[in-house]
């Protein structure tokens, strides 16, 4: 019997999973990927667009072209998922029944959730780089900015790639120094967290880096509203921060169809899932991958990539009537651009927070963890081709294991290549 596997979302998770499943099942499964559009954005590239370090056209490719032949790609808007019927209802089109459903629709930006954010100043003095349109509009705004208060603001967690707003600060600092304007700009990072990052050791390192670059930090600032005409951020506890140019990261939530699918998602529209198997708590034949899943780890591409192997294995096991054994351990890693052609790298999982040390990477050599280096920056640049040609097709990246072995990551470099 042919298994019907339906994947909602043709982004990082949906694409790499569809390709992995197609290889595993061959003719034994009909795999359908549904998305509302055919533009796959290389999201790590968004950070570079406002600074002219990447062109919008360079980071977008058609979704369908990233899928192996035999995978059915459909352009459609999902109305809801009917858990009792095991079917996806489309806004316009016939129902799509499934044996296994995967939620891979990521996180959406919800600026409308914050009073005062959207309005006449949106795209003028208020920007975001978390969408292609936003990142593109921010470039001329940054070019025109020649002094005053530049505020980079995270409204609330969780957000995609929690280090990206910091990277934005570092790159803005670099660009302003190159333009000879740094002394005329007060650059401030405003976060609801109690420090630069979510994990204490990395947070301390990044806090120090911010201080070194003279970037102010307003911590534990929970943005309640924005007074766009007076150009001020207001926190729920009545603090105020003035700005001339605001670069904000709007709150994130799941797409609307999740709220319309009874029993599937939580209050924010994310899908509660077992943190090791990625099986949705809503139903045994539903899995969640990537940003859509509510599991206690960063919403990041590396997480999605490492989850892929577990989800593919577990779908196969589920369909065969076996117990789920694939165990995702919360492995995440990210390069953090710090400007001046340098970057640092962090590597962590559910249990191990990012620590200094060396990351065994067999091609570029061991990469320094939690320390700035030119090599890490080169590795970050080298990643985009790997994304399109290795990660999305559903292959492992050589030397980068799905599981974090704390011993290997922190130990001496002689463990190079030992993480497969």
């Amino acid at each position, binding site marked *: 019997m042919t298994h019907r596997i339906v994947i909602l979302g043709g982004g990082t998770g949906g694409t790499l999973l569809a390709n992995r499943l197609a290889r595993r099942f061959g003719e034994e499964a009909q795999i359908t990927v549904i998305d509302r559009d055919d533009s796959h954005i290389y999201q790590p590239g968004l950070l570079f667009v406002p600074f002219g370090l990447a062109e919008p056209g360079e980071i977008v490719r058609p979704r369908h072209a990233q899928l192996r032949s035999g995978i059915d790609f459909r352009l459609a808007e999902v109305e809801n998922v009917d858990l009792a019927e095991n079917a996806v209802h489309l806004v316009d089109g016939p129902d799509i029944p499934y044996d296994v459903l995967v939620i891979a629709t990521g996180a959406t930006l919800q600026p409308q959730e914050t009073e005062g954010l959207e309005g006449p100043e949106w795209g003028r003095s208020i920007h975001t780089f978390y969408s292609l349109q936003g990142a593109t509009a921010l470039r001329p705004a940054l070019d025109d900015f020649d002094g005053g208060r530049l505020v980079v603001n995270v409204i609330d967690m969780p957000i995609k790639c929690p280090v990206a707003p910091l990277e934005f600060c570092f790159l803005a600092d670099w660009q302003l120094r190159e333009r000879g304007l740094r002394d005329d700009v007060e650059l401030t990072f405003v976060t609801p967290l109690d420090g630069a990052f*979510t994990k204490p050791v990395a947070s301390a390192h990044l806090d120090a880096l911010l201080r070194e670059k003279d970037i102010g930090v307003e911590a*534990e600032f*929970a943005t*309640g509203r924005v007074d766009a005409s007076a150009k001020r951020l207001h926190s*729920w506890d009545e603090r105020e921060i003035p700005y001339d140019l605001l670069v904000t990261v709007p*709150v994130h939530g799941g797409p609307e169809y999740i709220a319309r699918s009874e029993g599937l998602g939580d*209050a924010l529209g994310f899908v509660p899932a077992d943190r090791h198997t990625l099986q949705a708590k809503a139903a045994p034949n539903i899995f969640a991958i990537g940003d859509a899943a509510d599991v*206690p780890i960063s919403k990041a591409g590396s997480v999605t990539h490492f989850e892929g192997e577990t989800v593919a294995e577990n779908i196969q096991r589920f369909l065969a009537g076996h117990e789920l054994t694939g165990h995702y351990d919360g492995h995440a890693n990210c390069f953090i651009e710090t400007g001046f052609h340098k970057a640092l790298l962090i590597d962590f999982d559910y249990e191990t927070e990012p620590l200094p040390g060396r990351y065994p990477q067999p091609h570029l050599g061991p990469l320094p963890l939690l320390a700035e280096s030119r090599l890490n920056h080169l590795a970050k640049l080298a990643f985009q081709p790997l994304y399109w040609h290795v990660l999305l097709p559903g292959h492992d990246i050589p030397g980068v294991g799905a599981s974090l072995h704390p011993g290997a990551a922190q130990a001496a470099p002689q463990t190079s290549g030992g993480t497969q």
Partner: protein
Amino acid sequence: MTTITLAGSPIEVDAEGFLLDAQQWNAQIAEEIARENAIEQLTDRHWQVVNFMRDTYLETGSAPSIRSLGKTSGVPIKELYELFPKGPAKLAAKIGGIPKPRGCI
């Protein structure tokens, strides 16, 4: 980890004063932690939030973030900040005897 005395019993807490064992908690402990954090009297509204936090944690293993609280606890965010100044999710978790919310990851 340190052991402190709350409502007459030895209670294990972390460096920030969050209970390490949610089972050691009771209403007197909640009131005592509240007073230490400048909340003189826990009203019904406070209890609504504290109980909601605690029930959610015991049921799901993680405490809700402020935004989830605002959407699901029946108490709007503005009021949460009036009830629990500074950090409502953190303070309500501390009073409710559950670990510091890790909503931020």
